[in-house]
C-alpha cells in the first residue's frame, strides 16, 4: 500500500529526514518510535502533504501512485488520514458540518452517493460510541473548547467516520491520562482491518501496551536504524534509544 524509498526532507534548508525506507502493507500496524527531534512528526506531515517540508530526494508510492505529487486534500480523498499531534481549533465552524463536508468529498471521490444531514447523523452517531464521545460535541466548533483528551478522541472519531485506507497517528498518545489512552487504543484496535494500514508514531512505549503493533521501527536522526517485531519496543524501554542505536549502527535497516 505504501512504499517509502530513500526519503529525504528538509525544512528551511535543514535536513530532517535523511533517507527513510519503509514498506507498509494493507492489514498491518506499524509503530515508529524515536526520541524528540528524530523526524517522526516530519515523516507524518510529509506523508499528509504539509508543504512546510521540502522533499529533496526519494519517492513515496501509495497504491502505486506518486503520493508526493498530490495535494493534501487529494491525498485525503484517496484515503490517507493523519491524526494530528495537535488537532487544530477552527472557531465557528460546526463539527458536524465540517465532518459531513469532509466525508462527502471523500465519498464523491469514491463514487459513492453523498450523505444528507440525517443520514450523516446516523452514520456518525454509531462511531461516536466507539470513542465515548458525547453527541453534543457535533454541534460545537471544530476542536474548540475540547480538552486535550477530547481532541485526541475526536481524531479517532474522524478516522472512524472517514474510513481511510492508510491512517497515520502522530503522537496521538502524548499527554493522555490512562483512561483516555485506553479509549483511544480501543478505537484504533476496532479500526484495524485487513484492508487498512495503520502507522502509530509515538514517543513513549506505553501506548504499545494497548495497541500491539505488527512491526516496530526506530527512527533516529532522520533514518530508520532498526526494525523488528513488538518485542523491540520493550527492548527500547529497557535500553533507551542510545543503546538500540549503537547495537545497530552497522546493520542495514530492514523493512517489513
Amino acid at each position, binding site marked *: 500500500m505504501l512504499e517509502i524509498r530513500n526519503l529525504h526532507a528538509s525544512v528551511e534548508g535543514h535536513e530532517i529526514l535523511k533517507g527513510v525506507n519503509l514498506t507498509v502493507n494493507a492489514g498491518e500496524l506499524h509503530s515508529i518510535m524515536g526520541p524528540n527531534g528524530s523526524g517522526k512528526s516530519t515523516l507524518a506531515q510529509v506523508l499528509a502533504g504539509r508543504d512546510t517540508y521540502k522533499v529533496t530526494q526519494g519517492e513515496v508510492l501509495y497504491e502505486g501512485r506518486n503520493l508526493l505529487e498530490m495535494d493534501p486534500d487529494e491525498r485525503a480523498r484517496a484515503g490517507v488520514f493523519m491524526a494530528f499531534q495537535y488537532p487544530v481549533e477552527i472557531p465557528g465552524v460546526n463539527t458536524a458540518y465540517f465532518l459531513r463536508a469532509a466525508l462527502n468529498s471523500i465519498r464523491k471521490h469514491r463514487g459513492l452517493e453523498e450523505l444528507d444531514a440525517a443520514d450523516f447523523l446516523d452514520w456518525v452517531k454509531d462511531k461516536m460510541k466507539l470513542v465515548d464521545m458525547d453527541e453534543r460535541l457535533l454541534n460545537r466548533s471544530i476542536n474548540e473548547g475540547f480538552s486535550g483528551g477530547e481532541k485526541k478522541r475526536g481524531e479517532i472519531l474522524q478516522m472512524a467516520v472517514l474510513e481511510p485506507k492508510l491512517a497515520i497517528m502522530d503522537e496521538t498518545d502524548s*499527554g493522555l491520562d490512562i483512561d483516555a489512552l485506553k479509549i483511544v487504543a480501543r478505537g484504533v484496535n476496532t479500526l484495524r482491518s485487513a484492508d487498512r494500514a495503520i502507522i502509530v508514531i509515538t514517543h513513549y512505549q506505553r501506548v504499545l501496551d494497548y495497541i500491539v503493533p505488527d512491526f516496530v521501527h526506530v527512527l533516529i536522526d532522520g533514518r530508520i536504524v532498526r526494525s523488528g517485531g513488538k518485542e523491540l519496543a520493550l527492548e527500547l524501554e529497557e535500553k533507551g534509544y542510545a543503546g538500540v542505536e549503537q547495537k545497530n549502527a552497522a546493520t542495514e535497516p530492514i523493512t517489513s
Partner: protein
Amino acid sequence: MLQVAQKTDDYLSRFAQLEARLAGDGATFLLPIRKKAIERFAQLGFPTTRQEDWRFTNVAPIARTAFGAATGDGEAVEAQQLATSALMQADWPRLVFVNGYVAPQLSSVGKLPGGARLESLAAVAHADPEALQQHLAGYADYQDHPFTALNTAFMEDGAYVHIPKGVYLEQPIHLVFVSTADAEPVVSHPRNLIVAETGSQATIIESYLGLGDGVYFTNAVTEIVVGENAVIDHYKVGREAQQAYHIGTTQIYQDRSSNASSHAVTIGGALVRNDINTVLDGEGAQCTLNGLYLVSGRQHVDNHLRVEHAKPHCDSREFFKGVLDGHGKAVFTGRIIVRKDAQKTDAKQTNMNLLLSDHAQVDTKPQLEIFANDVKCTHGATIGQIDENAMFYLRSRGLSEPASRSLMVYAFASEAIDRIQPQLLRAQLRQTLFDWLPEGHRLQDAR
C-alpha cells in the same frame, strides 16, 4: 515601608537558632539555600499594598503579629477529631502533619505500588538527602516572594512524594495539615515536594485544617514537578480556622506532553492567599487550574495565578468561581505570560463571582503578557448578583426566599465542585457547601 511595625527581626533571630540546630544534619545542600532565602527576606520585608502583586491584600496583620514557632504536637490530636474533615475513612495513603510536623500515629502510608514514595520530608532530608537535592527549592521563587523566602529558610517538614517512571497510583495520596493553636499565635512552614517521573500518573490532595480557636499562621509551599507525559491531579483544600492566616504557594513545573491540574478550594481562614504558579516548559503540555472560594464574615481570600507558557503548543485553562457574603472580600489575579517561542499557545481564563451582599467586594484582574504572535488567549471575568428574575421564578413555585437563594448559589458553585475527580472529596465538598448555605440542609434533603 516601615510605617507598619513588622516583626521581621523575630524571624531573623529565630533563623540563627534554626541554623545552629540543623548544622550537621543530612541535607547540607540546603543550608546555603536557607541562608540566601533569609537574606532575601531581610531585604524584601513583608509586602505592602503598594506592590502590584499585593495591591488588594494587606498582610499587615501577619507582619505585626509576633508568632511563636510551632512545635510538632501530634499527641494532642486524636484521629476522631479529624474524622470527617480529613476524610479519615478513605483508605487512601495518608500523611498527617500537626503544626507542621509529621504525626505518624495519625498517618497511614501502607505500601505504594511500583516503588512510589510517600514520606516525611524531614525524614528524607535526614536519611536520604540526595533524593531531594535535584528538585527541592528549585522551582518556587524566593527572590521576589517574601513568604516563599521565609518558608524556604524555615522549612523542616512536609511531604515528599515520588512517583517513578510509568507508575500509576490509582488511590489519591492525602496530605493533611492540622493546626491546633490556642493561646499563643504560632507559625508553621509546611513544605512539600512532589515529583512525577515520565509517564506516571497520580492524584495528590492537600487538606489544611484548623482545630483551635487561636491565631495561627500557615506559610506553606508545595513544589510539583511533572515529568514528560506524566499526569498529576492536585487539590488544595483550605479549611483553616476562623482566625487563621494562610499564605501558600503551589509551584508547578511541567515537562513535555505533561498534564497537570491543580484545584484550590478555600472555605476557612481570616486571611488567605494562594499563589498558584505553573511553568509550561515542554511542548504539548496542558494545565488546568480550577478554584472555588466561599467567603463570608470579614474573610479575605486572594487567589493569585501565574501561568507561564514557555514552549509551543501548550494549553492552559483557568476556571475560578467565588461566592461572597457578609463583608467578605476576594481578589483574583490571573497573569498569563506567553514567551516568544511559545507559539500556538491556547490560554483561557475565567473568573466568576457571585455577590450575596452589598458589602462583599471582589477585585478581579486579568493580566496578559504576550510576546508570541500566534496564540489564542481568552479571559473573562464576571461579578454579579443573583438573578432576581430567576429568584422570582423559583419563589413563584413555592420555594422560600432563603431556599431559592441557596439553590441559586448551589447551582453556581456546583460547576466548580463537579470538576473535582476523587468521588469522596467531591462529596465532602458538596456537603461543605450545603453547610455553608443558609438553608442548605433543606436543599440536600430535596436532592
